[in-house]
């Protein structure tokens, strides 16, 4: 058991204070019981309290200094309400370390020689993760079914280091793996260092190519300000493109072959939404800047921005507006491969079009472009007549949407107005309605009836029912 003693806080001891009546109050909290009735809150605020001692029970291989940092804030509490709040916060922090299976809080009056009059002792009961966690499961994706074997070594050396490995073998003999090592670093910005080695095989029938990617990714993430996350990444990848079939277009064929991409990336994300899926309020902003060309034979500068805003108009009815845009510059004389281009269309972006169905096609293969923008306006409401209200029905939303966007190549030799014209004249848009289903806390499934409104020459529209599953939707 780790015991942390209170450092002397002189100023707190003075001033009015009311002591607890009768027997010392004991409070044991279960996870998720954060809400307190109002009347109780006012009483608790009036109860002076000082945390004398914090104990953490159940530590095995986890190092003391690592958990100490997380619970230090609890000492700052002045009254009983604050103790509870701070203890909760500490519990959340301990949970986020990923080292513990469960964290319980127990608050008691402190006893012994060093105890003060209003002294409390906060005890965290933790259960450490096992040394090895593993699993075998099957997964059915868009192209194939696969067997996934996962293995995780959490909290390897006692300071939150983690190695996780995942290997999947598909029915079409594709083999993907991903070995990741991550370590939280010390610092006020909660930095996290991650490195991974991966092999990833993907097939893009709409563009007529498949790709095998082997690479190394180094990532350093940290927070600056509330919810503003930065990721600094370096990625070196060996990518082998090949044609999916004999009928692949010659423009796609020309780009097949191995290449090496070495790029640095900065991702800024600001997430003020209440949840990831079906948020009711808040904004999400993401800005990705990637520069490729530090070695290798692929070179470009790629900027992509995403903005999503949610607004609850009346109870349970949410309006969501989103805007995405991307620009790819050829800053070096190195090549830009088809897999680096932007694509638009499909159930996850502009609905009512085939996947990657907006923009230039050659022999039915989407070739992608240098620049794009896309916007969406959504109205989420609960299911009509609210079946399964408060329970299963909360997983569903009915959903009306209006999507618009455009994609094109930007020619830097041309004048600016011409480039703007390229992206503003050929607007594609669609509208429709459907049902969206939440899968866990990350993914979303949509079944929509779509009506393409504006279709340009060369686009592949897909009016009618469209099904989409994914994480990031327009």
């Amino acid at each position, binding site marked *: 058991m780790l015991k942390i003693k209170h450092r002397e806080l002189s100023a707190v001891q003075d001033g009015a204070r009311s002591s607890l009546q009768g027997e010392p109050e004991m409070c044991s909290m279960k996870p998720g019981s954060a809400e307190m009735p109002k009347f109780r809150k006012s009483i608790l605020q009036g109860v002076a309290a000082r945390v004398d001692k914090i104990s953490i029970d159940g530590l095995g291989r986890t190092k003391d200094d690592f958990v100490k940092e997380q619970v230090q804030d609890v000492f700052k509490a002045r009254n009983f309400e604050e103790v509870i709040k701070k203890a909760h916060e500490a519990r959340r922090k301990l949970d986020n370390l990923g080292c513990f299976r469960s964290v319980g809080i127990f608050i008691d009056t402190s006893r012994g020689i060093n105890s003060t009059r209003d002294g409390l002792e906060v005890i965290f009961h933790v259960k450490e993760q096992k040394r090895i966690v593993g699993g075998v499961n099957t997964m059915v994706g868009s192209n194939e079914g696969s067997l996934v074997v996962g293995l995780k070594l959490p909290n390897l050396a006692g300071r939150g280091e983690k190695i996780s490995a995942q290997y999947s073998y598909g029915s079409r003999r594709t083999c993907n793996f991903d070995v990741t090592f991550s370590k939280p670093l010390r610092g006020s910005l909660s930095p996290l260092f991650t490195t991974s080695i991966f092999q990833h095989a993907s097939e893009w029938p709409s563009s007529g190519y498949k790709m095998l990617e082997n690479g190394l990714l180094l990532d350093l993430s940290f927070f600056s300000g509330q919810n503003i996350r930065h990721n600094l990444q370096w990625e070196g990848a060996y990518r082998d493109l090949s044609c999916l079939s004999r009928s692949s277009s010659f423009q796609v064929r020309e780009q097949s*072959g*191995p290449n090496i991409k070495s790029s640095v990336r900065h991702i800024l994300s600001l997430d003020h939404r209440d949840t990831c899926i079906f948020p009711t309020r808040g904004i999400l902003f993401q800005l990705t800047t990637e520069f490729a060309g530090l070695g290798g034979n692929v070179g470009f500068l790629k900027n992509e921005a995403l903005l999503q805003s949610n607004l609850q108009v009346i109870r349970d009815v949410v309006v969501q507006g989103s805007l995405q845009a991307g620009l790819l510059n050829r800053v070096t004389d190195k090549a830009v491969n088809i897999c680096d281009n932007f694509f638009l269309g499909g159930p996850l972006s502009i609905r009512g079009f085939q996947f990657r169905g907006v923009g230039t096609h050659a022999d039915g293969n989407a070739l992608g472009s240098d620049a794009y923008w896309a916007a969406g306006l959504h109205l989420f409401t609960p299911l009509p007549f609210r079946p399964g209200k408060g329970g299963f029905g909360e997983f569903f939303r009915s959903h009306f949407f209006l999507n618009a966007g455009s994609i094109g190549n930007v020619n830097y030799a041309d004048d600016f107005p011409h480039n703007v014209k390229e992206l503003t004249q050929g607007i594609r848009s669609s509208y429709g309605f459907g049902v969206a289903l939440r899968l866990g806390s990350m993914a979303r499934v949509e079944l929509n009836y779509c009506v393409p409104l504006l279709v340009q020459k060369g686009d592949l529209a897909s009016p009618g029912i469209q099904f989409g599953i994914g994480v990031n939707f327009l």
Partner: protein
Amino acid sequence: MKLSKFFCQIMQIAWLSKSYLKMCDLNFEVEQRYNAENMSPSGRVPFIKCGAFLISELDPIISFVNNKGISLVDKLDSSDKADMRAYMSLVNTVLGSAEMYICWCDKTCYNEVTKPRYGSVYPWPLNRYLPYQKKQQVVKKLAVLGWSQKSLDEVITIVPLPSPVPRPSDIDALLYGHLYTILTSPIPQINDKLANIIRGHEPLIKFVKHMDRKFFGRTTEVSKEYVPLVTEEADLNRTPLDHATDQQSTRGALF
């Protein structure tokens, strides 16, 4: 019949198909791409692009041209044609495999010529890895034929040298392609035994010179103090090497 647009994309030395197309008097353009091998529908070079069609390797190219009504062998009877096919397959398997062996399995040649050449178009880690990967593939393929364990001297003794036939036919294109490649590739001297065997075989040298003159309008010096003539675009990246070796000593190994 003339094909107005005949377009050919070639990476390495693709004389086989090139000479065939020349013999058929077809117009074509040569393009070199670093990823020609990956572009080819069958994964082998050379290949041609004619309109929307992509045809790779010599046999399919011959049948494609035949389908267009052009043939070099329409005067031959069926038994001659069958003989020709048999010879072609012999040349392809044996001479082709011997070339593969020299390029990929012979250490000196691999390190000095094949590896730098094959990897030259790729950036750093790939110029080491891809030749190695290709080598593994070739070794595997040769192992199936039982060639991989042989020594260079064993390999060159099993190479049959067919005699050219008087009339131009499909096999001439094939034979010329192989012979020209062997004779003019800058192989390190000690390992250039195969070329020396061919140099010692007068009819073959005559044949190559004749083909050079007739279809490519050039003369190739294939004997001592040889320097290849740079006449074609595909030749530009070649470094002329001195192929002078002692012909006399290897002549005995011929037949």
